[in-house]
Structure formats: C-alpha cells, structure tokens
C-alpha cells in the first residue's frame, strides 16, 4: 500500500496540482485507495495501468468530473496552486475552465468549427467583441495545430472534420478558455496512427504552457509523450517516476510485469 506522496522535483519545476491520500468510492466500492501525487507544471505526466486500475477515475478527480456521477464520493485533498478544489467555495464551472479535459472520443459540439472554439470564451466572458473572439479562435486553432487545415472553412460543421481533426478541435476548445491544466483521457484511442502522431506532436508543443496529464492504454504513447509516468494498479499508485526510468528500470515488480507484458 502506498500512501506516501511520490514527489519528483527538479529545482526548476513547479508543482501545479497536489493530491494527498485521495480515496474515491462508487457507492460501497472503493475505486481509488489513498493516492498521493504531485502534478508538475513543466512535464507531461502519463497515467498508465490495466483496465479498472483507477487511472481514469483518478484523472477525473482532478477537475471534479466525478461530481457528475451520483454515487461517487471523493476523500482526501486535491489542490490547484495550493487551493483546495473540493472546497465549498470552489466554483466548479470555473475550475473546469482552469482544468480542461479532452475525452477518448472526439466530441465537438454540433456547431461550426468557429462556434466550437468561441463558445467557451464567450460564456466565460473572455472576449467582448467579435474582433476579440476572432483573435481567440485563430490563436486557439493555431495552438491546436488545426488552423492551416480549417482557416478557409471556419463555418463548416465541426462534426464534418476527420476524427483526428475533431480531436484537435476539442483540444483547441479546451485551450480557448485559457486553462492551466489539460487532462486527456485516452485522447488517441479512436484515432489512426497518423492522427495519433499529430496529437502527440501537439502535446509536445503544448508542454510547458499548460500542465498536461494524459491517461493512456498505449504504453508506447506514454513513453513517447510524457516525462513523468505513474503506474496504477487496483486503485493504488504503485510507482511514479521519470518516464525513462520507468521504462528502462522500474523499481516495483508490478510495474515491471505490466510494462514488459507479463501482467497475468
């Protein structure tokens, strides 16, 4: 059982989010068992582990997405820049703008490409005029690596794009509200290898501007995109370390068995 926080700090990195002894229950069933971890601002963190290990559940605690599940209950503390995100004073809508999320299947709104990006900034009051909004849309689409492909058809429907483009549109939508953290829950599992490579390259470009946490079933993807890897098993955080160490010389037997394909 691991309750000690696993912190990996280099002198020049800053902790963006901190979780301490986090437990998650779905009704009677405990899904997360005392996870403590620091999410770094400057490094991409990957959560890996077999199905049902709790990695997605834990990811969802980081922007209170589990609030939408009636039976879910979260214990322990999670802070964003030192601020308790489960405090009663926390505005959850505001929190989810600060801690954005990208899901497994691309889920653009059934609206135009432009509106997909503009919707968030508009309701959050981040742009006051059409000109401001145009700037936000272009900037977000550029950061999402999609601008060149869609600049001439911004008023086409977002759902008419290819799967990979739709996923980058969703990343652009998350970026548009100027988040501090972006959570990605298996963002490439519905994409082909080329679209996957584009998302991975995008993650690389966004690193440092946003704290990024990615859940992935694809260990090669974790190895490619992250600098920190956390291995979850049976609701516990088994090992958290520098990605290159985890994949060449993991300390825990369970981590080794999983990443070498011996997990029985």
């Amino acid at each position, binding site marked *: 059982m691991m309750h000690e926080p696993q912190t990996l700090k280099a002198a020049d990195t800053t902790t963006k989010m901190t979780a301490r002894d986090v437990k998650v229950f779905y009704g009677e069933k405990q899904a997360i068992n005392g996870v403590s971890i620091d999410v770094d601002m400057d490094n991409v963190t990957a959560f890996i582990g077999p199905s049902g290990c709790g990695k997605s559940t834990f990811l969802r605690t980081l922007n209170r997405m589990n609030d939408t599940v009636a039976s879910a209950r979260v214990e322990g503390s999670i802070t964003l820049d030192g601020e308790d995100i489960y405090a009663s004073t926390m505005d959850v809508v505001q929190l989810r703008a600060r801690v954005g999320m990208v899901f497994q299947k691309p889920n653009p709104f059934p609206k135009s490409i432009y509106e997909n990006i503009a919707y968030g900034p508009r309701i959050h009051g981040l742009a006051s005029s059409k000109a401001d909004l145009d700037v936000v849309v272009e900037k977000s689409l550029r950061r999402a690596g999609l601008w060149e492909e869609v600049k001439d058809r911004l008023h086409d429907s977002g759902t008419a794009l290819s799967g990979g483009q739709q996923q980058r549109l969703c990343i652009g939508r998350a970026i548009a509200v100027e988040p501090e953290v972006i959570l990605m829950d298996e963002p490439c599992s519905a994409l082909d290898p080329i679209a996957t490579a584009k998302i991975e390259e995008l993650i690389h470009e966004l690193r440092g501007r946003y704290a990024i946490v990615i859940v992935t079933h694809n260990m090669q993807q974790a190895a490619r995109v992250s600098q920190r890897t956390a291995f979850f098993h049976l609701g516990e955080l088994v090992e958290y370390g520098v990605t290159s160490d985890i994949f060449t*010389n993991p300390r825990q037997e369970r981590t080794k068995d999983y990443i070498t394909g*011996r997990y029985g």
Partner: protein
Amino acid sequence: MAEHTIKAFDQEMDKLRGLIAEMGGRAESAIEKAMLALQRHDKEMAAQVVADDKRIDAIEAEVEKLAIEIIALRAPMANDLRDVIAALKIVSVVERIGDYAKNIAKRVPMVATNQRMLEPVSLLPSMGQVAAEMVHDVLNAFAARDADLALAVVERDTVVDDFYNSVFRALVTFMVENPKTISECAHLLFVAKNIERIGDHATNVAEMVYYAATGQTLPERERGGTQPLED
C-alpha cells in the same frame, strides 16, 4: 520470472539466450583448443580452431538479426529491453574473443616444438585456462541473470593481468639470454597479449550482464596495469 502474456515473445527471448550460450561455449572451447594446440604444437587442431571461428561469426549475425526483430516487433521494455541490448553488445565482444583465439591458433605453426622454448612461458596454459573460465562464467551469468557471478568475473581480471605481467618479464629475460628465439618469443608475447585482451573483454561482458540484471551500471573500477604500461 513470470512468463509474457504473448508466448512467442518468450520463445524469441529463449532463442536469443540459447544462441548466446552456444556462442559462449564455442568461444570458450576455441580458447582451450588454441592453447592445447600451442602446447602440443598440434597444427591440425589449430587449423580446426580457425575453421570453427566461422560459426561464431555466423551466430553473431544471427543474434543481431533476431535482436533487431525483437526490438521492432515486440517493443521490449525494462529488463527485457536491457537483455536485448546486452545481447547485442555481448555478441560483438564474444566475436572478438573468438578472433583472439583464432589469432593464437594461427601462431601455432610459427612457434617451435622444443620444450626448452616453452619453459619461460609455462604460465601460458594456466593463464589461458583462467581466461576461458571467465568467458564461461560470464555467459552463465547472462543466462542466469546473475549479477554476483558477473562481479566475480570482473574481479578475476586482475589474475589474468598478473599472469600477463609475469609472462612478459619471463619472455623478455629469455629473449635477452637467447637472442635466436626472439622471433618465436615475439609470437608468444602476442599470445599472452591476446589472452590478456580476452580477460578484458570478458570483464566488459560482465559489466553488460550486471547492467542487464540490475539496471545499475558498475562503478568505474581500478584497472590493473599491464606491462610495459604500468598505469
């Protein structure tokens, strides 16, 4: 160690280990035969060592091909990755060890048969034996992922170095007293140097085995000086 979920991966890793074990056995036997041929002045046996070296070279190529396939198709991780990389590096070193044995065998016809000649180098067969055992043990260590056995091999390298220094002094003294033997003694000096290099290579393999088994690199060790370069 637990088996891989994909059985074919285990079979390929077993094959890799099997090839390296065979290669090591052949290199060890090449050293022993070359030294025996030298002692007995057995040119046929020496020629056999030279011919057998082709199989060692062939195994190196086979291991390289298999290791590249494993990396490409299985994407090995952690200890598996370290094993495959170690296998790649080990075969190139063992191939060199085979070459040194072959080089010793090639000198057999150039060294005289008279017993008096071998007196100053009575240490050579024992020296060869220690080096052959190092090769044997280090490849067993790889097969068994035995870091302690690898360490023991590293420590034995000083024995070979000490032998080399003694043989070197004995040969120089002998050459001074018997200038007519200089040509043959020069060959024996190369034989001694070859065995000394085999010891060094076995030590390098031991370092790779240690890394593959533990994930840690061995701290830089003090190397014993060899004549005529003490440091």
